[in-house]
């Protein structure tokens, strides 16, 4: 997957750093995979089909045709509670930025997927476990407002461990804020698709992830409100492996479809085509 120029610029030095890691080990089958092969295979294990977690920019470049106009880059992480534990919250954030190569838990913007203009948000588990703080909530809200203004369909990729503790109630309030934006967006008759990737839990799961017209999930993605450990502690027994997987939720009627990463882009394009009345925007 060649990296487009805009992406290379946006990632800066981190792009090089990340590419420097030459191989990855599959956490499911143990296969050692060359990173270049893995990327070429959309970060799906060539041996067992395990879907690796992807960075937001890798997702975006996998989907978006050409240019991608980011929204909300000016919104930066605050420290509303003045949080300190072993480190201050700003120090943690700085470390995560360095490590993950992105500046917050979601990347939002407008671009086109196979000719269909779309508002796209992609959460990134590598940044503080994809937790939703005010930046995530604010950027997604800005994206939904922009999509509403321009009558664009909106696609959100979720990946989240839940609300971000260090922002306390401000984090929880992002569930309310994003939902209010979703409701306005949908009330105007716009199309909303969410793609739940591993893992999608807590406050993200219990807000915009499950408010969309069509809920797609990646194979074996862990999806739920309560975390697996919390449930196991509560009921004092082990849960079966398939509990809270995408496939489990499909059977339980909670999601619309489980789609492999290879099929994901064509599926999204078809969904966008249905909602666009069968016509490409351009």
């Amino acid at each position: 997957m060649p990296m487009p120029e805009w992406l290379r610029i946006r990632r800066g030095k981190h792009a090089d750093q990340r590419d420097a890691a030459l191989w990855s080990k599959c956490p499911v089958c143990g296969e050692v995979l060359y990173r270049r092969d893995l990327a070429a295979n959309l970060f799906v294990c060539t041996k067992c089909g395990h879907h690796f977690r992807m960075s937001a920019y890798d997702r975006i470049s996998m989907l978006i045709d050409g240019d991608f106009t980011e929204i909300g880059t000016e919104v930066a992480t605050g420290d509303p509670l003045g949080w300190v534990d072993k480190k201050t919250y700003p120090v943690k954030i700085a470390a995560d930025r360095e490590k993950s190569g992105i500046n917050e838990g979601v990347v939002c913007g407008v671009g086109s997927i196979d000719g269909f203009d779309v508002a796209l948000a992609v959460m990134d588990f590598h940044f503080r476990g994809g937790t939703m703080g005010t930046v995530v909530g604010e950027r997604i809200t800005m994206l939904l407002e922009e999509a509403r203004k321009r009558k664009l369909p909106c696609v959100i990729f979720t990946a989240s461990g839940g609300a971000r503790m260090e922002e306390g109630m401000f984090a929880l309030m992002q569930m309310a804020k994003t939902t209010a934006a979703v409701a306005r967006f949908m009330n105007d008759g716009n199309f909303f698709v969410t793609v739940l990737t591993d893992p999608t839990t807590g406050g993200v799961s219990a807000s915009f992830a499950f408010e969309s017209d069509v809920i797609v999930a990646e194979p074996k993605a862990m999806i739920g409100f309560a975390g697996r450990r919390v449930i196991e502690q509560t009921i004092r027994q082990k849960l079966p492996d398939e509990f809270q997987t995408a496939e489990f939720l499909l059977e339980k009627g909670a999601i619309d479809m489980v789609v492999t990463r290879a099929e994901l882009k064509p599926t999204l394009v078809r969904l966008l085509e249905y909602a666009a009345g069968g016509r490409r925007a351009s």
Partner: protein
Amino acid sequence: MTNPIVERERGLVELERRIAELRDVNVDQPVDMSPEIAALEQKYEEILREVFGNLSPWMKVHMARHPNRPTALDYIDAFERFDELHGDRHFRDDPAIVGGFGLLCGRPVIAIGEQRGRDTKENLRRNFGMPSPEGYRKVRRLAHLAARLRVPIITFVDTKGADPGISSEEHAQSEAIAMCLYEFSQARVPIVATVVGEGGSGGALALAIADHVIMLEHSTYSVASPEGCAAILWSDASKAEEAAARLKLTAQDLQGFGIVDEIVPEPLGGAHRDREAVIARVLGSIDAAVSRLAAMPPDRLLEERYRKYRRLGSWESGQQESDGSHA
């Protein structure tokens, strides 16, 4: 786990008993012991202030969880009238959620609350006030009914959080909570939410998107329980006290943040020490808020509700925006 507030109250019981005895005895005695009694009573007041006068966040967590603290139904039953409606129309009636039509200060409302048990047996039946998806679907149904009939929605929040059980996950707890948020964010009627006890996480927020949010003086409202937060951040639930302090979960903190609109004071020692007064005060605050909101055209009501949540947590370059420049 013992509740330290209850522990402290036990320590006071002996003193209370002695004062009462002295008062009884005094009537029949030739020597007047009133000065001694007055001194003891003053002492007792001092101790009360000492013990309850300046509760730490962690103590407030326990006050919010106090077994005798008035629950949702204690407030709802104080309405002029209440007719409970049941069920999600699909699967089950969840006793952790109570809701129905009520008459408050002569005005019909839909009242909905998270209901803990007031004893062990009721707690088991009501799942300790932790709602299942069926409960949240009942909430959504009633909120929708209120909006259809143009009747205000009054909620009482009091939960450790949504039920974290197997069947709750199987029945799409996430969807159930999300659709409550969705319904509340759109309902074209005034919504007043009161956090009367513990407001825990998304399970509390599901009933708390409101035009006016009230908290009792010693109730708490947080993104996660202190125990949960400590487990998540430090893999050590015993650091809950520290988490309670860091989370800024008190009514006073949240009013400062603009997340809570009004605080209703409690008597020294907590709401359960003068239930009737507290309940009357809460209902008075709710009625005042509803009266104000009911006068607003629905479009403006919705617009202000949107702006209120739109504003929360809009920072640019680490600076809080006070007026939501992105709105």
